[in-house]
């Protein structure tokens, strides 16, 4: 398994854990109306900062654990860490997908504001767009690595 494929699987697992652990409380608070008013925006920003910081920590932990696990399973203590042209091409296509989906989320948020939705709903849409873009990009990379590009 190429090192970038391992990274894509690790990043996918990390993003799922991050959204379950940090994203679910944000969704619940939004549903409960805990983010209404100016103080609600501040509270939302705090929660999203925790999500971002927590996501980085979870990403690092999952990546290390996944690499160790894979080394044990494949009985290969020092797997290849080379990145080549195929990895770069798959990486570029993944970045494109992230950009397209995140942009769609941003445009949807603008439209929502234009038709009278609240700021929190628009901000959550941008957040979901970025999260979906990142996750789908990792899925797309895994598909390219398994089934060809």
């Amino acid at each position, binding site marked *: *398994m*190429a*090192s970038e*494929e391992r990274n894509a699987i690790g990043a996918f697992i990390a993003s799922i854990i991050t959204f379950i652990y940090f994203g679910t409380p944000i969704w619940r608070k939004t549903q409960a109306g805990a983010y209404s008013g100016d103080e609600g925006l501040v509270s939302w920003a705090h929660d999203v900062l925790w999500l971002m910081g927590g996501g980085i920590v979870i990403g690092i932990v999952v990546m290390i654990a996944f690499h160790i696990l894979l080394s044990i399973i494949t009985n290969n203590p020092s797997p*290849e860490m*080379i990145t*080549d*042209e*195929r*990895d770069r091409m798959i990486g570029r296509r993944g970045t494109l997908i992230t950009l397209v989906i995140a942009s769609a989320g941003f445009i949807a948020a603008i439209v929502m504001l234009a038709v009278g939705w609240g700021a929190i709903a628009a901000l959550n849409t941008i957040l979901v767009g970025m999260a979906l873009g990142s996750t789908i990009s990792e899925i797309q990379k895994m598909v390219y*690595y398994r*089934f*060809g*590009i």
Partner: protein
Amino acid sequence: MTQKALAEKVGVTRQTIIAIEAAKYSPSLELAFQIATVFGKPLSEIFNYDAEPNDRSL
């Protein structure tokens, strides 16, 4: 020559050589020439091209 040896000679991963052999990845022109050079053959003897994209193989 093993896939690993070829990969090391042209500076890519073994997985990329496997993907090229299985027609799951079309190499860049530079990599294709490097592979042909390793085997000491012209490009057309190493790679073939058909109109169907999935038929390009090593």
